[in-house]
């Protein structure tokens, strides 16, 4: 069964600094990978996803994540963060197979941006 580990429960950074939120997964088969974001007092929404093709995927608000199969990682990065990026970020994995497979989430990383 697949599992996801987010190594940092909290990440404080200063505004305009770079950030990396780490995500490692465990699976015996090929996977789809996702990052979801939950802004304060809001529901979860998809930030970006890797299904196939280019291993570097980007979101519309400047985040990117790179699928590294050999390291079983899907770290999320942004070169310069803004106050509005303050949120909780969840990494998720779904195994390939017939039809959709169960989506498993990591424990989340709370990103706090300080002015």
């Amino acid at each position: 069964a697949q599992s996801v580990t987010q190594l940092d429960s909290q990440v404080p950074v200063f505004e305009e600094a770079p950030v990396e939120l780490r995500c490692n997964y465990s699976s015996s088969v090929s996977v789809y990978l996702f990052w979801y974001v939950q802004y304060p007092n809001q529901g979860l929404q998809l930030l970006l996803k890797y299904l196939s093709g280019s291993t570097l995927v980007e979101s519309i608000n400047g985040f990117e994540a790179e699928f590294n199969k050999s390291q079983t990682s899907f770290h999320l990065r942004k070169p310069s963060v803004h106050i509005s990026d303050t949120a909780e970020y969840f990494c998720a994995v779904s195994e390939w197979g017939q039809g959709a497979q169960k989506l498993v989430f990591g424990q989340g990383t709370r990103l706090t941006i300080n002015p």
Partner: protein
Amino acid sequence: GAGVSQSPSNKVTEKGKDVELRCDPISGHTALYWYRQSLGQGLEFLIYFQGNSAPDKSGLPSDRFSAERTGGSVSTLTIQRTQQEDSAVYLCASSLERNTEAFFGQGTRLTVV
């Protein structure tokens, strides 16, 4: 509907009472998930429905928890004899069979007093 709809948005119940939480997935989505998010915790998987297959119930924390999905659409999560530790936000999500991107509802905040 345009998105995943959950009701009620908030529910306060007395310890020992039963509660039912409802989820209306996006039309045409064959996969439906229930998760629980406790204060300061991550997303705890509860149960997963995929089409007509037997549901994956491996995440249900006790036999007080059950869920059903009628007609491959609406789902109800039932918690019997609620306990204070059941207090959490219960999230429902749905996805298409061949695209596993999940769309989440706003959740039901359950408070057991």
